[in-house]
């Protein structure tokens, strides 16, 4: 119970600091450009911290360690891809995107291709991706608060929504910038401190040290363990084993001692299994059962190779298509600052991702029971208390819990701002009042869906969001920025085909989860096919509809690529909403900018 109090206390501290920083940031936020793009005055390093804070969602903070625990070395491609996405962003998108002067992604599409239809179409996809990303954030927030403090699940989701909503209502993008930047450093501390302490314990503890993770053969329990499943799960057994099972196994009631031979077993919801020390660990279906496969890369044959490459494709190219990340690049003063922001983000992310990997490896030693239920996302939260069942473990556990809570807050705020920005400027007239209404609307819809929909696998949803972004907005941005021949018809066709294919794959996945039929790799990681198809469609349809090419394409490309000191950049939000107070500031900034 003391541990719960520590956790609850730190979570409240994080929430209070979030409110405070949001309040500080939103003073004097009163114009639409304030709410949409924080007046385009965020310096590169602070914007980079804010982007990293927003980007390191629960999928990174909790998920990466869980994936390493479950899938081993092949899961390391997730952090690599999450970071490399910013290299692609920096090389091809960041500076020209900022110079376009747009304030949302749909606005960029209209600025470049001059079609209101395309703008509405992009609006639809931005809202889709935003909600697809936001709902699992809220659901995991509820689950995490439930795990660490015992509060009811719905309360966590509602708490996150309310905190984020109040901040965003107060100052939009201006309010959340400082909050997200602070939350990056908070999260870095929350994962680094436990990693250092636990890694030292891991290396120092005799007989429980690094050797046993390295051993070949089947993973075994190091002590007596009791596991209760939260929902139905299929596990694979490779070595005959003895255990005690109470509940439902393979559809039949089980009560007491059992002997399992090699094969797969379906465990019903609420089944309790007791294992003795030294007995092999049954592993959730689809993950490596032996240490040898866990330790070695690419043991999954050609199918595994396809999945790895598809993952590389989705994450490298998907990052640049995430609307809530893109909108943060609009807050830089100019193209050069946007480019420097992307570079700094790579540094901050690289620093962060060293730690979840280490925690994932240690969890394999201390928390093998998570492999039975497949709930490996809890590894980071449970590890401190398991390794150090004393005050130190409680404090470390509380720090991790607060970090996870910060992850939910910062990602959700970014998503709410980006969705509300699009809704208020494309569906409503775009005044500050409309932005506030759009925020309330977005929050209400998201919390409603989060409470109604069943909880999906967080890592799967994230993978799908990346694939969707890589197959829709990524080709639009790359071709729009570098190729004069793009037309709005081609862009729309490409996005329809790419997005449609990914949504089909998503539907196949849902069906396979419900029916127990194993989905092919193509549907779990579709990017390797859908991205090239989307690109090809966009190029071919654009060539066919060449006469719809905008007349001023040369002017637009000049604006996108001309260096900042020449002063071709014009901010479209100032043109549309600009206030009397805003314009003098813009001028003084433009003329005072030296070249260096």
């Amino acid at each position, binding site marked *: 119970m003391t541990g719960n109090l520590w956790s609850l206390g730190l979570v409240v501290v994080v929430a209070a600091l979030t409110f405070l920083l949001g309040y500080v940031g939103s003073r004097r936020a009163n114009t639409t450009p304030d709410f949409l793009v924080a007046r385009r005055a965020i310096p590169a390093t602070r914007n980079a911290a804010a982007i990293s804070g927003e980007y390191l969602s629960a999928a990174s903070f909790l998920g990466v360690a869980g994936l390493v625990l479950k899938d081993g*070395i092949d899961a390391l*491609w997730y952090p690599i891809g999450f970071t490399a996405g910013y290299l692609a962003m920096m090389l091809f998108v960041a500076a020209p995107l900022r110079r376009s002067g747009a304030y949302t992604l749909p606005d960029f599409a209209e600025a470049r291709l001059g079609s209101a239809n395309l703008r509405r179409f992009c609006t639809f996809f931005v809202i889709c991706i935003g909600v697809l990303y936001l709902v699992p954030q809220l659901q995991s927030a509820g689950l995490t608060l439930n795990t660490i403090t015992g509060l009811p699940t719905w309360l966590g989701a509602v708490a996150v929504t309310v905190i984020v909503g109040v901040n965003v209502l107060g100052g939009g993008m201006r309010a959340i910038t400082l909050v997200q930047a602070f939350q990056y450093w908070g999260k870095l501390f929350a994962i680094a401190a436990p990693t250092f302490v636990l890694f030292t314990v891991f290396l120092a503890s005799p007989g429980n040290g690094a050797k046993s993770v390295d051993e070949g053969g089947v993973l075994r329990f190091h002590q007596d363990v009791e596991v209760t499943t939260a929902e139905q799960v299929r596990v694979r057994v490779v070595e005959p084993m003895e255990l005690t099972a109470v509940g439902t196994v393979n559809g039949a009631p089980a009560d007491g001692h059992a002997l399992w031979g090699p094969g797969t077993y379906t465990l019903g919801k609420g089944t309790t299994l007791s294992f003795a020390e030294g007995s092999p660990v049954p592993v959730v279906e689809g993950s490596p059962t032996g240490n040898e496969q866990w330790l070695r*890369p690419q043991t999954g044959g050609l199918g595994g190779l396809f999945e790895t490459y598809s993952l590389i494709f989705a994450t490298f190219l998907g990052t640049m298509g995430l609307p809530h990340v893109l909108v943060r690049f609009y807050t830089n003063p100019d193209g050069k600052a946007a480019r420097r922001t992307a*570079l700094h983000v790579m540094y901050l992310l*690289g620093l962060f991702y060293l730690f979840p990997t280490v925690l994932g490896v240690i969890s394999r030693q201390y928390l093998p029971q998570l492999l039975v239920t497949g709930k490996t996302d809890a590894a980071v939260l449970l590890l401190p208390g398991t390794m150090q069942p004393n005050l130190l473990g409680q404090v470390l556990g509380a720090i991790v819990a607060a970090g996870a809570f910060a992850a939910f807050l910062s990602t959700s705020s970014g998503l709410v701002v980006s969705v509300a920005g699009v809704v208020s400027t494309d569906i409503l007239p775009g005044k500050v009042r409309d932005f506030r209404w759009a925020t309330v609307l977005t929050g209400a819809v998201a919390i409603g869906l989060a409470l109604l929909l069943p909880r999906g696998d967080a890592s799967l949803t994230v993978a799908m969001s990346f694939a969707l972004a890589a197959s829709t907005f990524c080709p639009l941005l790359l071709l729009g920025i570098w190729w004069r021949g793009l037309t709005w018809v081609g862009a729309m066709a490409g996005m329809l085909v790419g997005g449609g294919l990914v949504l089909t794959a998503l539907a196949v996945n849902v069906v396979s989860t419900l029916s127990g039929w194993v989905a092919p790799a193509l549907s779990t990681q579709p990017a390797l096919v859908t991205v090239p198809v989307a690109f090809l469609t966009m190029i071919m349809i654009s060539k066919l509809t060449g006469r719809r090419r905008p007349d001023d394409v040369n*002017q637009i490309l000049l604006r996108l690529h001309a260096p900042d000191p020449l002063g071709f950049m014009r901010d479209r939000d100032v043109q549309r909403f600009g206030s009397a107070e805003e*314009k003098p500031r813009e001028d003084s900034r433009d003329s005072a900018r030296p070249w260096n």
Partner: protein
Amino acid sequence: MSRHSGPPGQPDQPQPGERDAWPAVSARKNRRRRVVLADPRGRGRVLRTIIELEEQTSVGEKLIRDLIKQQLKTAFLLGGGTLLLLASLPVLFYLLPGLADVELLGVRLPWVLLGLLPFPLLYGVGYAYRRLAESHEHDFVSSVDR
């Protein structure tokens, strides 16, 4: 929405010296000035080339096309090289399973290759691109400035 018209600027009185320096363009000046006046020092000198850029005359068109080509080439070379380097790893591991047994300071080689090294590599490539892209832009501005 004034998307396709030239960027709206702020009314600004012409400086006496500039009018003398560029008599040929002074007639058009009231319309063009707004585009130009980013840097007070370079006003008169930069003017003509920027008008060429804005109006997409053959010279201006060539200048900006060259810049775009140069930036794209740099991005493709750096990005493609990095992708090739990283994407060769899974195939390498698949074809040479023996690599997994090599140990480096007590840690198996693939774990070092995937868990540690990509991050400095990505930052290094990004840093190189920042330097190159900014120097290209600098050269472009100087060429306009002459």
